[in-house]
């Protein structure tokens, strides 16, 4: 178990050593976002904006226009919310090479409450032209995703979490932007996860197998571009889809999958996620249970959807 933000802190340091053009920015949360490690090692390449996210994004844009590769970090709720228009105008519109690494995404922020739990950031960022949106599942995949983002020329939004999450991928995994991963094969139904919900999808698939249902499990670490081929193939071969995300069911993974299916291969879908509500204070685990973001709920959804399968 490792938090994705910890993996980010490590790999950012590694990128800093490899490339003198890598710079980092933060908005007074470097201890939490884990950019503090980079700041300590490369103080001349670290810029704290103070509690001023809009300016942080603008400075990152200028640094990119000046030839640097900036990684700008704060909590997801402030990055995608407070600094939305700066991300739109100063990063996405000019297609500048800035990586916005947003930590503390989703409800597992926990005790800080709904004001600090971003349930809409993936939807907001996904709607922007030129923007790439990533949501890795665990520590190893985060490291690979950050390296892939650094190697890619253009704006990327990467959503990470606060708490420790189970490890799904091997240490030496690779990450390809725009590519989904088949974690388990199956023919009856497909569970598609992103972020920490992928581990739950795997858990749910094991339980379904015990009940005689063969569930396929896909992981979408790349929300945009989405691996449409993999989604359509799963729809054609299994005939039913359950999506799982620590995010609103509107506009994130579930929304993106439904868009692809509606145009390419309409099959029954259930979207597991936040049902158009804000979160609240509480321990992360209890919040996941409270809002139905659990393996048990995925099992229920899969069993329910099987009855809606066409043919």
């Amino acid at each position, binding site marked *: 178990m490792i938090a994705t933000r910890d993996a980010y802190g490590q790999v950012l340091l590694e990128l800093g050593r490899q490339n003198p053009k890598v710079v980092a920015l933060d908005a007074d949360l470097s201890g939490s976002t884990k950019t503090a490690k980079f700041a300590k090692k490369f103080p001349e390449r670290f810029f704290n904006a*103070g509690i*001023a996210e809009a300016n942080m994004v*603008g400075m990152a*844009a*200028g*640094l990119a*226009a*000046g030839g640097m590769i900036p990684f700008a970090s704060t909590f997801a709720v402030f990055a995608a919310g407070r600094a939305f228009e700066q991300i739109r105008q*100063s990063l996405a519109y000019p297609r500048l090479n800035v990586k916005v690494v947003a930590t503390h995404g989703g409800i597992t922020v926990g005790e800080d409450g709904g004001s600090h739990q971003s349930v809409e950031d993936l939807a907001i960022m996904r709607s922007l032209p030129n923007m790439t949106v990533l949501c890795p599942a665990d520590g190893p995949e985060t490291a690979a995703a950050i390296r892939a983002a650094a190697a890619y020329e253009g704006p990327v939004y990467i959503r990470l979490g606060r708490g420790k999450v189970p490890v799904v991928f091997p240490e030496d995994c690779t990450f390809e932007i725009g590519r989904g991963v088949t974690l388990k094969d199956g023919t009856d139904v497909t569970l598609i996860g992103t972020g920490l919900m992928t581990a739950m999808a795997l858990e749910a698939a094991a339980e379904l197998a015990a009940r005689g249902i063969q569930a396929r499990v896909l992981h979408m670490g790349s929300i945009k571009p989405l691996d449409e081929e993999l989604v359509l193939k799963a729809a054609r071969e299994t005939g039913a889809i359950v999506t799982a995300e620590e995010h609103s069911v509107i506009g994130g993974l579930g929304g993106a999958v439904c868009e692809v299916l509606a145009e390419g291969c309409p099959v029954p879908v259930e979207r597991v996620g936040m049902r158009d509500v804000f979160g609240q204070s509480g321990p992360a685990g209890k919040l996941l249970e409270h809002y139905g973001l659990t393996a048990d709920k995925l099992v229920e959804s899969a069993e329910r959807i099987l009855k809606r399968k066409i043919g």
Partner: protein
Amino acid sequence: MLSEQTVQDLEQTARELRVDILKMLHRSQSGHTGGSLSAIDIMAVLFFHHMKHDAARPDWEERDRFVLSKGHAAPALYACLAKAGYFPSEDLATLRQLGSHLQGHPDMRKTSGVEVCTGSLGQGLSQAVGLAMANKVAGRKSRVYALLGDGELQEGQIWEAIMSAGHYQLSNLCIVVDCNGLQIDGFTEDVMNVGPVTAKFAAFNMHVIEADGHDITSLGQAFSAAEVSGRPTVIVASTVKGKGVSIFENKAKYHGVAPSDEELQIALEGLGAQ
């Protein structure tokens, strides 16, 4: 100190740029007249005297960079870039037309010589701060110039950016505020008073210089003083909205209105051009 000849040459250049701005806006029948005319003397001194840049090498690493934070004055920027040779002056006639590389607001991906995308007010200064930081990280000696409107100072992001310019002591950054006193809804001091601006900038650890934004000598002195100050500098330039065309001067109405046929004639006559 600029020589008398240099001052005369720059005055003539500014006159020609005003003609280009008016013709381009008249042709497109869309765009921002008043703020382009108030800014053009400042930009003439920068582009044709003070800044180190080369139209033949728009990606030259050591160039000075100009950020038009008040992006709606794009016609002024396009007039300067065309005259400097970044693209043919005939292109000016395509301003704001479908398929043109001259967008309503500056676009770094479409227009040669445009450094960043601006137009959403308040955002250009942050980008200029980032450019100045990049120069320091890369060890480049080049400077960054950002032109702001006084109405733009109402955006909170400006003060976030000023705070960071002062905090990081970006001595390679020079900000010019085109203080024409007007914005779309009227006089800036009536809409939302941002004064006293000089004291505010000084309070944010900036080196502040007051200048006459239509006096070439005054501007030349200010830019030279900024360069040797060793501190981030704000030049508070007093200007007149619509400057150079009597019927447009000091009128909020001409913030976002292009000249009609008749107005163009009057304007060109006033500038001694036909």
